[in-house]
């Protein structure tokens, strides 16, 4: 029973944190809320018998990927001015339409999901099992994922390098 209570608490935290993340004016604040949300989801993962996934969620998602965001936000140096603008942008007129759309979609999803029966697994899927299937039937997927990361790497390298170089050149010319 405790698990179920935990689950609901975690779910509530995740939802609230996400909502907060979506509505903050300050990017760093939003990011922290997002991390909270991710951590809450990790708890859920743990609760439904996916400890490995929970770990990865924390380590990679809340850790690595979010840090990327932090870096970029820091680089861009968004200040108070940015916050003000963000608040202006978040007027009801802007989000009314999208909100309606989202609610409709949500309702549809709820209707669809509503009939799903059955609990989640009784026994946890261990990290070993996951590892076995990753390097068993899914071995090609891992290889392709490597290629995917390579593409991401090369792409961001190309774009980011240009940014830095330009920055450098501009600075150089100004000196």
């Amino acid at each position, binding site marked *: 029973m405790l698990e179920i209570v935990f689950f609901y608490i975690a779910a509530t935290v995740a939802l609230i944190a996400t909502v907060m993340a979506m509505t903050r004016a300050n990017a760093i604040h939003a990011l922290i809320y997002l991390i909270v949300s991710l951590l809450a989801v990790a708890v859920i993962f743990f609760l439904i018998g996916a400890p490995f996934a929970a770990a990865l969620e924390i380590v990679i998602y809340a850790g690595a990927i979010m840090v990327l965001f932090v870096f970029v936000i820091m680089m861009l140096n968004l200040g108070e001015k940015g916050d003000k603008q963000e608040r202006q942008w978040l007027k009801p007129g802007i989000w009314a339409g999208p909100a309606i759309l*989202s609610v409709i979609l949500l309702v549809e999803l709820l209707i669809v999901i509503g009939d799903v029966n059955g609990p989640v697994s009784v026994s946890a899927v261990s990290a070993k099992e996951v590892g076995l299937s990753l390097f068993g039937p899914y071995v090609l997927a891992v290889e392709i994922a490597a290629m995917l990361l390579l593409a991401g790497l090369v792409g961001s390298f190309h*774009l980011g390098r240009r940014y830095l170089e330009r920055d450098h050149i501009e600075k150089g010319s100004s000196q």
Partner: protein
Amino acid sequence: MDGLNIPLNHILLVSSLLFAIGMLGLMIRRNIIFILMSLEVMLNAAALAFVAAGAHWEQPDGQVVFMLILTVAAAEVAVGLGLVLQVQKRFKTLDMDHANRMQG
């Protein structure tokens, strides 16, 4: 761990709520950084659904997919943030509503 009987549809419910919130964020935010965050939320929602479904069927596949989603998210965000830098550089703003030079 006995008594672990969280209904699947409740987890899916949470994930769909996350998905919808992410989508809402996607639609209302003008700042590209927030847009990317919203995307992460959506991907995360999908990942949650996968893991839950995997748990439901007692298969490791759900978690495998979760890991691949992580990869995908990482790659996307990497390129996405690279683009953000460029956007800031060239447009001098992160407001995506300003990026509408092409239309019609």
